[in-house]
């Protein structure tokens, strides 16, 4: 079986390629990349002018909710949402019910992913049993079962001692520890960024330093142990400062930023919908200086990757008083439009940098296949339409949950098609019947 992607601009930073090429896929493998490849015997996908043919996008931070919270999302609905967002691979967090602290749960998730046959799914295991912070989980067995990293996400790795041991032990296994950084005592029962808007709305605040304090701990412990710490969903400018300082002195620290943190600020809590629970996430939307710092870090390379922190919640759980609603928003299907609109078209980043953030770097940091379009590699390819006018309609999202603050947003940028193992698993309905 052959598939020919005709006339696209192929952007493959890992192989130093950026130009007009055809891509021939044979039996799920990238067979040739060259100009004017013969269409003979191949199904032809006409790549439109302005579209980008890039290595399949990888989202290193999603919550698929299965097992245990299938009313929010399942592996099957999560990967359906992923391919619609252009992601050929996702790494899923262990804060399921039960927590993924055991190889049996990892195997269960992988079985569900194999049945769904859409995005690749890379489970991330818990650092501690039940993510309770007491006892180290069996990281070795978990890695053997398929875990690519470890975290107690949803909460920080509880103590400096546990973090130290986890970094040492995971370092032995060659995988990073991902940390959800917040000092629990400073966070308290906060629900919004500490500042004028939280004060005006009477919401309990979480200062940016609640995050950066933990980032600083983690950078120090990574330095102590020579382990690799990856900072999840970074939001505060002080955290970025700590990451930069760590990188400057050679500490193995990497970090990610979620699209909502380079797009929105806490001002959005006041209007157009006051107390919109779809603006409640953890870490919270911060102030303009933080949002701008995240963009600077993304532009200058201090931020390694963009990850969505896709956090589905059932509508019933979000239609509550603000302080009672759960934290988090879905993100898989809005990531590409937001990256294109807020970063690429504003001139903050180049196309090459965008591809690094969305696939090259996640593949490198978590040692995943993909992140490149190498001849002989599985054909995981995303075709982006960076100029596509997209109107976000949350009701039409393929995720089981619709908890997004971007309903009705007009954004420039979208996904044309998603290809996994040479199979076109998603074509944007606006192009259906037009490009094939």
């Amino acid at each position, binding site marked *: 079986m052959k598939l020919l992607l005709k006339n696209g601009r192929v952007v493959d930073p890992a192989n130093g390629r950026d130009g007009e090429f055809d891509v021939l896929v044979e039996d799920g493998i990238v067979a040739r990349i060259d100009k004017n490849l013969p269409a003979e015997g191949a199904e032809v996908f006409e790549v439109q002018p302005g579209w980008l043919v890039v290595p399949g996008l990888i989202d290193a931070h999603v919550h698929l909710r299965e097992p245990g919270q299938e009313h929010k999302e399942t592996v099957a609905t999560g990967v359906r949402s992923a391919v619609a967002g252009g992601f050929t691979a996702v790494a899923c967090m262990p804060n399921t019910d039960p927590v993924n602290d055991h190889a049996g749960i990892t195997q269960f998730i992988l079985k569900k992913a194999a049945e769904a046959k859409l995005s690749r799914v890379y489970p991330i295991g818990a650092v501690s049993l039940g993510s309770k912070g007491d006892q180290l989980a069996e990281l070795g067995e978990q890695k053997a079962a398929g875990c690519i990293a470890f975290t107690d996400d949803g909460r920080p790795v509880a103590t400096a001692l546990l973090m130290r041991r986890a970094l040492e032990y995971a370092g032995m296994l060659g995988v990073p520890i991902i940390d959800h950084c917040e000092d629990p005592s400073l966070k308290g029962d906060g629900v919004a960024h*500490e500042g004028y808007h*939280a004060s*005006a709305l*009477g*919401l309990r605040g979480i200062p940016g330093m609640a995050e950066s304090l933990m980032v600083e701990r983690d950078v120090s412990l990574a330095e102590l142990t020579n382990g690799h710490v990856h900072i999840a969903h970074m939001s505060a400018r002080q955290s970025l400062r700590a990451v930069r300082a760590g990188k400057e002195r050679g500490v193995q620290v990497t970090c990610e930023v979620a699209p909502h943190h380079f797009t929105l600020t806490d001002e959005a809590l006041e209007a157009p919908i006051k*107390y919109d629970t779809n603006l409640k996430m953890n870490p919270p939307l911060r102030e303009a200086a933080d949002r701008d710092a995240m963009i600077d870090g993304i532009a200058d390379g201090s931020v390694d990757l963009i990850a969505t922190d896709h956090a589905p919640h059932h509508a*019933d759980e979000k239609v509550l008083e*603000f302080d009672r609603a759960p934290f988090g928003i879905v993100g898989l299907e809005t990531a590409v439009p937001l990256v294109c609109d807020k970063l690429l078209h504003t001139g903050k980043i180049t196309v090459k940098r965008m591809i690094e953030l969305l696939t090259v770097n996640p593949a490198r940091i978590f040692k995943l296949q993909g992140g490149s379009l190498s001849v002989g590699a599985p054909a995981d390819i995303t075709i982006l339409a960076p100029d596509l006018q997209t109107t976000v309609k949350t009701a039409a999202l393929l995720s089981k949950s619709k908890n997004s603050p971007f309903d009705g947003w007009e954004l420039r940028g979208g996904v044309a098609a998603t290809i996994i193992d040479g199979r076109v698993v998603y074509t944007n309905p606006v192009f259906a019947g037009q490009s094939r």
Partner: protein
Amino acid sequence: MTTKTIERVDQIPTERTPATRLRSRHLLGIAGLDADEITLILDTTVAMKEIGGRAIKKVPTLRGRTVVNLFFEPSTRTRTSFEIAEKRLSADTLSIATATSSVTKGETLIDTVQNIEAMSPDMIVMRHASSGAPELLARVCQSTIINAGDGMHEHPTQALLDAFTIREHKGRLAGLKVAIVGDLMHSRVLRSNVLLLKTMGADVWACGPATLMPKGIERFGARPTTSIDEAVEGADVVMLLRIQHERMHGHFIPSVREYFTLFGMTEERVRRAKSDVIVMHPGPMNRGVEIDSEVADGPYSVILEQVSNGVAVRMAVLYLLAGREEESLSA
């Protein structure tokens, strides 16, 4: 049984000038009111207060209207005040407190309120521990929503009754120095009062321990200070806010004893204010914590007047929101 023919508040004609009518059909906070609307409420309160002074303290203004007081947080003063106001306007009224509601059975706020709405009330007066709960209701409910205090956000009728009380004594709000002292961070009374007093042109000072100072308070329009002397110096009005004993648990204050030493309103401190200062407290008071008994019971204390005026202000709010014509009042 009579056939139900209650006109909905939102169907009442709106072709009236801003000075005689509130723009919103809800009272969610002071934040939504302009100076004309605040003045309208305060002026209407004068007429309502007169009713409370009569031998027969009842007018038929809200006859046939149903008002539900939904109190998800303990309250004696505010709930009683609303109930009396509603009864004086002849509304059919009932009060629901958390202990007897379905909320304890795990029902959501919206489900609870929609069940009440299915019985066609005209207005819902709500007190809730979560900031923004009235906004949530206003988005899904047909009824007029009156915020009787939401979390740390707003308590608009308290600010209105405070303003009315100040105006009775000073004849104006503009240009007055008002010092608000106490637990600023957790106080909905602070937020509503600062918004109202700034809108009306007062000079508002907010004083309390640094640990209880809300971030960005200067953007509300209040002048923050941790110096009680600076706050009270030359003040026309000193308003005290309750210090909850549990604040010691969040390390906000070491002890109520020390709070009193540093911030407690004593006679000596009141003497720094203008000679005709009035001292206010939204209640419930902690004598010997934020206020010395000598001050609470002293000649400049208007604390009980505030409570009396609360009924009249709430009558005015209910009346204006119901959108009844003035003439029905004089019937």
